[in-house]
């Protein structure tokens, strides 16, 4: 689902041949990870070549649930917003913003789920909200 209260302009991601399928799926509300076909590890950010063994990797759809590993609130921004490292239940830890959350109520260990945030003319990007 889309986050329905975009509070600030999010610039569109740079889409490359390596990541085009991720962003196409994002536009359809599906969250993809790369898993290595040799060592079977998942990683983040998505790469065609496995960062653990340099094997080939393949896309797989995943749930986008996880827990907050660390967080901060950018209080200086014109509209304050929250950023976090989220450890996905699927393994890797990824950076994203937190949307539709109480900026004064965040804590490490909170469980979150992925939502898609619209960008300014590009595919949506992953965000998280409290689950």
């Amino acid at each position, binding site marked *: 689902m889309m986050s329905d209260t975009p509070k*600030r302009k*999010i*610039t*569109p*991601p*740079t*889409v*490359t041949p390596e*990541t085009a399928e991720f962003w196409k799926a994002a536009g359809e509300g599906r969250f993809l990870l790369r898993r290595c076909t040799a060592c079977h*590890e*998942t*990683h*983040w*950010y998505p*790469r065609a070549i496995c*960062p*653990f063994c340099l094997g080939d990797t393949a896309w797989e759809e995943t749930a986008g649930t996880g827990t907050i*590993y*660390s*967080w*901060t*609130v*950018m*209080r*200086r*921004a014109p509209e304050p*917003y929250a*950023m*976090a*490292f989220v*450890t996905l239940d699927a*393994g*890797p*830890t*990824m*950076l*994203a*913003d937190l949307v539709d959350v109480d900026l004064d109520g965040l804590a*490490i260990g909170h469980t979150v789920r992925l939502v898609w945030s619209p*960008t300014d003319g590009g595919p949506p*990007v992953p965000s998280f909200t409290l689950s």
Partner: protein
Amino acid sequence: MSIKNKAYIVGAYEHPTRKAPDKSTAQLHAECARGALADAGLTKDDVDGYFCAGDAPGMGPLSMADYMNLRVRHVDATDIGGSSYLMLVSHAVQAIAAGKCSVALITLAGRPRSEPARPGNPWQPDAAWEQPYGIATLNAYAMCAMRHMHEFGTTAEQLAWIKVAASHHAQHNPLAMLREVVTVADVLASPMVADPLHRMDCCVVSDGGGALVVVSPEIARTLRRPLVAVLGAGESVKHTMGGRVDLTYSAARVSGPIAFAEAGVAPADIQYASIYDSFTITVLMQIEDLGFCAKGEGGRFVADGNLISGVGKLPFNTDGGGLCNNHPANRGGITKVIEAVRQLRHEAHPAVQVPDCRLALAHGTGGLLGTRHGAATLILERQ
């Protein structure tokens, strides 16, 4: 092969400007070069090796060697952000030891107060996964501090002590941007900019620069400056590790032990330390990772004035550091080496000079601590 005693730092110069709207970046580089060569007692035509990093305008060593009309036989422009210049000292010593040059000039300069920020490169492989959110320097450091507090019980008061110590030193530096002595309460009362970092946990933004001259032992002995030897050096990078993110430590965990082993000394032997201070959390994590205290003990180590010269056990950043003095080009690495050289020459301000300072450490972190960063450690000795 070791670089121990293979070359000496004989020239060091910190540009006095903190805001330079009327100068070009290339001009600032050249003014720094002129200052460091004069300090060493050498001339431009003695330089046969030139070292710079990402702040150098144009195509780095090509543009700057052309601007300064240097005739060099060795160049190196390896960029690991603000830690580049500590690493370039190591690379200069390596080049001198290998006979590739004998007088190495290293320059840094920039005008972040007077020029618009350079946009991030949207084609670097991490860009799509970070830049849309407005990932900023602040974010990446703040999340390290938040995790450190969570894992080890580090407090905002303990982080504040790092700024307090820097301000005690800066009061004696007439060129420092922030000379007012502050208290822990002052830091905690400053506005929260990115939880848990307050405004006073953050370094200054300044125009300016610096330069260093590193030479072979044969040339160093002909000069009239105290001999500052490079005893050991280490470098490393740390990143997001394929998604196995661990924000509790920095690349100093690798670069520090390499430098100490090469120098043949231990953290307890260090009399003065220049430690990169983009933010207070940067200092705290580096102190742990360099082995001045155990992991997780950094908060207790820095508290109660332990970093204040004449008061604590580890005098640090006696020029006021990036937190109070200067952070030229948003890259504080070169000023870390410059103040360590001042201490070893016994040319620091008398109020902050470490008595009979013979052994110093300088360490830098470049890039973003929470995503990807470089680290470089130098162990320096007065001989």
